[in-house]
């Protein structure tokens, strides 16, 4: 859907050739989502079928200019006015993997989390290098748009890293709580390797941890 609406939004600024749409789409998004020209023309064909755009005239090489229709303009207005529903997004593979890791016996969940965290930090480093290398003042509208896309990716990577921290703390806490209940019942005092933490550390057994871990 984002290509359809992206192209319509560009056409709402005035008629354009197909290749022009591709160039402008990519420069606005910093080539984050490269488009092939086939995608552009197939999307334009659907927009034409839905009467959101019309073809007007052609240049010497037979390339058409596309113009937005009133219905198309209405769709762009609606797109900008409507929030993107979180449920419309594709399922997140990482969440599914973590959920499976927690419920599959013998999987080192903390190891899975750490492997992902390292990979996430690596891509965050790459994104930050792009940001660091960019000149202090944006070169124009397209450059400004690209930086917003870049920041969006940085925020998403950062959120993923924070969520991974949360997952790890949750798993460690649940793991610590499970043996603690058993030793309480047996009246023992021996600690486990995982529980041998510094006083004042954030990793601590909580009575409700085992309950939640079982769910």
């Amino acid at each position, binding site marked *: 859907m984002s290509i359809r609406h992206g192209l319509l939004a560009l056409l709402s600024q005035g008629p354009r050739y197909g290749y022009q749409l591709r160039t402008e789409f990519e420069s606005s998004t910093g080539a984050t989502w490269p488009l092939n020209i086939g995608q552009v023309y197939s999307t334009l064909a659907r927009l034409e079928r839905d009467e959101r755009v019309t073809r007007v005239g052609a240049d010497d090489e037979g390339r058409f200019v596309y113009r937005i229709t009133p219905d198309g303009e209405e769709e762009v207005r609606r797109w900008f006015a409507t929030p993107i529903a979180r449920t419309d997004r594709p399922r997140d593979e990482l969440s599914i993997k973590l959920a499976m890791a927690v419920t599959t016996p013998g999987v080192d969940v903390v190891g899975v989390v750490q492997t992902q965290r390292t990979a996430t930090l690596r891509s965050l480093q790459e994104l930050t290098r792009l940001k660091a290398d960019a000149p202090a003042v944006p070169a124009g509208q397209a450059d400004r748009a690209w930086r917003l896309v870049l920041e969006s990716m940085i925020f998403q990577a950062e959120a993923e890293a924070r969520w991974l921290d949360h997952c790890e703390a949750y798993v460690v806490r649940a793991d610590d709580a499970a043996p603690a209940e058993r030793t309480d019942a047996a009246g023992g005092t021996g600690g486990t390797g995982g529980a041998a933490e510094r006083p004042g550390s*954030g990793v601590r057994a909580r009575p409700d941890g085992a309950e939640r871990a079982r769910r």
Partner: protein
Amino acid sequence: MNVLELHAVSRDHGAGAGLVHALAGIGLSVAAGEFVAVMGPSGSGKSTLLTLAGGLDAPTSGRVVIEGTDLGTLGRSGLSALRRRHVGYVFQDLNLIPGLTAIENVMLPRELDGAGTRRARREAALALREVGVDELADQFPDEMSGGQQQRVAIARALVGDRRLVLADEPTGALDSNTGEDVMRLLRARCDAGAACLMVTHESRHAAWSDRVVFLRDGRMVDTTGSRSGPETLLQDVR
């Protein structure tokens, strides 16, 4: 050329039943021009690592080497001198002495080290210019914003020919844009040849580094690897 090297460094606290391994078998080097971030949950040993790297505490076993000198071979005064000459610290807050102006704060470590006032002032002015706040030279800390104070603290950390910066959550008290300015500045100082070891819990800030190392339960569990150098820069001694 490594500015800082940790070889199989361990630090225990307490004894007997209360014995805790705060750090165990850490091997880590930071080269000139390199920016290394340390991440890990609270209690993972991040701050202990920084304290040992700066010679503020001694390891139970292992060696800490700064600019080629093994800290274990130094007496108390030798250690103080080495810290003053080679190591700068940037903390979350309480960085500057309130009764001194910006330039006096930056001059202080050089004067303590025996540099004459004129020379200390000249070097301090240069350091302030390098971090972009030379116009604040005669202001007191409470007349500056948090971001400006942190810039002055970085100038003080790097004044003279010191090139090892140890930073503990240096953006902690700052809003996100100012925090990013501080990261840009540390990045620029590293690109100009400084070596920085920074503890942070913010992945957004750690991402400005060349390499992120992850600690858990006092052990180094993973690293993003170095941008330019080979993986051999990190020797996980376990």
